[in-house]
């Protein structure tokens, strides 16, 4: 089940968590915040379509379990000067960087789950790409979540002029019910380029909340790709902050829900500086009795003049009893901008089915073909062949 993308684990390295007093201190600081914040309720806008009443997070406590984090090519990427280490380790070895970047994008007091993560993280990666460093091969990380739950905290810093490809996957190590919380902060400093690929494939019993936030500096670019499969509750938030003039981002996402799975995807773009550009496209397929909620906000501040920002969301319904919610929104404070969004919800058209069936395909085959074709415009933009193949496989399954 694991090593989905890592077909050839030659140099697989396990990042072992190091005990760090400083990291413990950081966690202690937020413990009271976690205790005092209430669980979000459905009355809150962000949780309106995702019920967490049945999710008793205390049942999963004490959250001190280390997840297994593996990197296939750690040695190779370190050769280009990149630092890859456990997050606790970084508290000891790079306190200045931690002080500058840790918890700055996703603040612990913003909600219960952010506080949970800040106060309980067990391990995670710290990835530091020095100035002008270019990683020749993609950095591949897999997070193996086992039944003892996980609280993962990652920090990625790309210094100016650097360039990396990053691939991460979250895979369960067991079929049992578990809870996963992950927070990843990504800094693309001036003129850097990050190509960030995220894949998760939770079984039908897992509840996961992954929150990724990237800040793009002057002329920096962050390109996101995400694929979400399964999960009793699979909540993925990817926010992009355009904090430098000329920064840009593309955010492509896809999801497939089946059985009684609930998928909750949010992709927001916050334009804080002029001349930024953004393109978000998230498409999903709902099978069986699955449900989904997609939210996407484009916010352009007064300072964000000459910005172009687009968002689209398409949902294809295969299952009879599926439930799809889509809430794209715009908040525009500047006038010299172009911003738009589009959303559609539809079914497999009978005409398309007929066309294919007239050519000898069975109804099921035809439906599968259309389903795959629906997500293909996004899949074909993935940079890595192995990831493309893996995702195509998961869609049919």
């Amino acid at each position, binding site marked *: 089940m694991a090593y989905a993308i890592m077909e050839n684990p030659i140099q697989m390295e396990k990042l072992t968590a190091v005990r760090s007093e400083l990291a413990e201190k950081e966690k202690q600081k937020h413990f009271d915040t976690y205790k005092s914040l209430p669980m979000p309720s459905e009355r809150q806008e962000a949780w309106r379509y995702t019920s967490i009443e049945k999710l008793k997070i205390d049942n999963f406590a004490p959250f001190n379990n280390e997840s297994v984090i593996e990197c296939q090519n750690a040695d190779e990427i370190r050769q280009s000067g990149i630092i890859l280490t456990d997050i606790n380790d970084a508290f000891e070895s790079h306190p200045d960087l931690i002080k500058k970047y840790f918890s700055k994008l996703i603040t612990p007091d913003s909600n219960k789950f952010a506080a949970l993560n800040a106060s309980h993280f067990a391990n995670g990666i710290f990835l530091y790409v020095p100035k002008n460093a270019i990683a020749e091969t993609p950095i591949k990380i897999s997070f193996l979540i086992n039944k003892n739950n996980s609280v993962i905290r990652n920090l990625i810093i790309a210094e100016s002029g650097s360039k990396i490809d990053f691939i991460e996957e979250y895979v369960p190590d067991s079929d049992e019910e578990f809870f996963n919380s992950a927070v990843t902060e990504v800094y693309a400093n001036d003129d850097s380029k990050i190509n960030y690929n995220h894949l998760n494939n939770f079984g039908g019993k897992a509840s996961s909340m992954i929150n990724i936030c990237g800040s793009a500096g002057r002329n920096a670019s962050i390109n996101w790709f995400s694929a979400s499969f399964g999960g009793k509750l699979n909540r993925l938030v990817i926010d992009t902050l355009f904090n430098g003039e000329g920064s840009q981002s593309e955010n492509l996402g896809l999801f497939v829900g089946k059985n009684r799975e609930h998928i909750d995807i949010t992709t927001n773009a916050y334009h804080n500086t002029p001349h930024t550009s953004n393109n978000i496209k998230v498409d999903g397929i709902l099978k069986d009795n699955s449900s989904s909620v997609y939210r996407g906000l484009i916010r352009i501040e007064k300072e964000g003049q000459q910005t172009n920002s687009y968002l689209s969301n398409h949902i294809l319904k295969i299952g009879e009893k599926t439930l799809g919610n889509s809430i794209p929104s715009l908040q525009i404070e500047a006038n010299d901008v172009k911003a738009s969004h*589009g959303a559609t919800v539809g*079914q497999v058209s009978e005409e398309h089915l007929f066309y294919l069936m007239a050519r000898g395909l069975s109804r099921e085959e035809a439906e599968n073909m259309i389903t795959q074709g629906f997500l293909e415009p996004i899949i074909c933009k993935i940079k890595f062949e192995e990831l493309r193949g893996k995702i195509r496989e998961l869609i049919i399954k």
Partner: protein
Amino acid sequence: MKQEQVLKTEESETFSKDYSKYAFSDKEDYIFKSKKGLTKEVVEEISKMKNEPKWMLDFRLQSLDIFWKKAMPKWGADLSTIDFDNIYYYIKPSEKTEKNWEDVPEYIKKTFDKLGIPEAERKFLSGVGAQYDSEMVYHKIREDLEKQGVIFLDMDSGLREYPELVKKYFATVIPNNDNKFAALNSAVWSGGSFIYVPKNVKVDLPLQAYFRINAQNMGQFERTLIICDEGSSVSYVEGCTAPVYASDSLHTAVVELVALPGSKLRYTTIQNWSNNVYNLVTKRAFAYENATVEWVDGNLGSKITMKYPGIVLLGEGARGEVLSVAFAGKGQHQDAGAKIIHMAPNTSSKITSKSVSKDGGRTTYRGLLKVAKGAFDVKSSVVCDALILDEKSASDTAPYMEINEKKVSIGHEASVGKVSEEQMFYLMSRGLSEEQAMTMIVSGFIEPFTKELPMEYAVELNKLIALEMEGSVG
């Protein structure tokens, strides 16, 4: 040629206006004016003055409790500045609703004369109602329609003369616990129109009501109920204005539409309140089998507008359409939108929203599109476009889509932008001034809306837009 000239002068006479046409106010010379503030006594007094049946008084008092219990909405525009204690909840300008224009008190008649109401009635309407503060002062319908059984009354007379009909439908579309402001209206409502169109009767020309707030710190709470019986059709138009005062007024209406099978109902609003009016209105329609309901909603004035006309498509084959335009100038927030709920199969809907913000104004489109389980073969499309004319202004779009059925086809599109330099250049190179070019582009932008209005309204709206645009460039 000569005819053309005559037409032109006529037009400019009728429509050469600035807001000062609406901005005058009359001396307050009322028959009754309630105490400021909202108490149980005020509600009882209103009911007593209207000689209402007991069920209505009970309904009012229950609604008042709901109003007090419900919290202010935490979303949308900023309503924190409303002072509920500084408002007159009931002001009675005249003894009764007149059918003869001559019998309307002189000073009120003058007001509506200035607004061009009697003239409009002669020209292009089937019936007219005029509300002055809390009460309808005039209500008149063409005789032939009256003979066919069309009822067009003010809500209070409706309740007196057709108690059974009113009781059957009143507050069924919008219950008093729907939201805080619907509860407020339910407690202190006064005036508004009551329309019933019998089976298969088609009213060819629109019925119109004009709402005028005159008194300072006034709360106008009209209540409109329109019932279109099977196979009938009607179009209703409302216009609203108020004088400019230093302190704020409140307009909280509830409008309920019932479109029975096969009927067709169109409701057009041109809201041009002065910039000191909070306009917080609940509007909803039920559309049964093969019925069509259309809201045509223009929001130009007011300080804050929060209004989301809704259509619940209850019967197979029903169709709903909302067409709205919002124009937010200095200090204005137009938080408007639409709600469409598909409850039955083979229903279709369309929402078109156009908004323009300038001089620091803010427009918001807030919408809900819901397809309930079992409502298959539903088609719906939503388009909202916003223009932001200068850097001080802003625009938001917040559409919600909840789709619980598989066999559907739903599309939503929204865009925000500015007037393109190219378009401006094109027009200006043909001799238009910057202001003229801008006005022309804005008029063109809202064209899908204006072309749905009765001719006279379309002309007036374009004049109002031109007025709003004055001094917007350079």
